[in-house]
């Protein structure tokens, strides 16, 4: 399954093996893993809750995957995004892009993460010692997505 949204932890290494096993046409794989950082906005972060809009998150990630396949000379893409309660160090998101040579795989993984950040309907709520708050969207993420739109 190229797009999975799940509360469970994932194993990036195992996913990479599954995606590339018996595939001599693949010469390059780029794996990106996003994790929960301990320090966020100056407060010590204890846990985080990821809320999502299930039907749209699945559809949007599939649209991003399809767009990446149209733009870059890649073989396969796998995207896993978690939701629910997470702790510092926990993996949140996995993107694997495979291609015959390295550049399309790097570009596709980068592209997918930029669009995922600005378009996929997930919201982070941080729970710290001083209370809980919703994470604000970053303009730098919008700028990262904008640069692909040319």
């Amino acid at each position, binding site marked *: 399954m190229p797009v999975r949204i799940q509360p469970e932890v994932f194993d990036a290494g195992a996913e990479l093996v599954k995606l590339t096993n018996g595939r001599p046409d693949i010469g390059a794989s780029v794996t990106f893993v996003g994790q929960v950082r301990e320090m966020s906005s100056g407060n010590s972060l204890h846990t985080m809750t990821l809320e999502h809009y299930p039907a749209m*998150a699945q559809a949007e990630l599939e649209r991003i995957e399809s767009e990446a396949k149209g733009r870059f000379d890649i073989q396969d893409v796998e995207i896993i995004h978690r939701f629910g309660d997470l702790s510092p160090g926990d993996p*949140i*998101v996995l993107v694997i892009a495979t291609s015959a040579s390295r550049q399309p795989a790097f570009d596709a993984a980068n592209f997918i993460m930029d669009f995922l950040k600005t378009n996929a309907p*997930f919201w*982070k709520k941080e729970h710290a010692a001083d209370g809980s708050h919703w994470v604000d969207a970053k303009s730098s993420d919008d700028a990262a997505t904008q640069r692909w739109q040319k």
Partner: protein
Amino acid sequence: MSSDITVLYFARLREAVGTSEELMPLPHGVSTAGDLLRHLADTDEQKKFAFEGLDIKIAVNQEQATPDTAIAAGDEIALFPPVTGG
């Protein structure tokens, strides 16, 4: 097809509005997502307050939309703050 629309709220907007989902008949005179936002704010003080000062993103039937996007009975309209996943 249902004559109702489904309105979904997420994250801080869900908390401010006090509900995650409501089913309602397509209000008279509402033909776009922007019309619906105005209608909701005009008919409910809590929503008017919740919408104020917030950058509200809109999706119609699980696709990104704008205030100009047409809506019809049976549609699922989601309202939410800018996304922060990944």
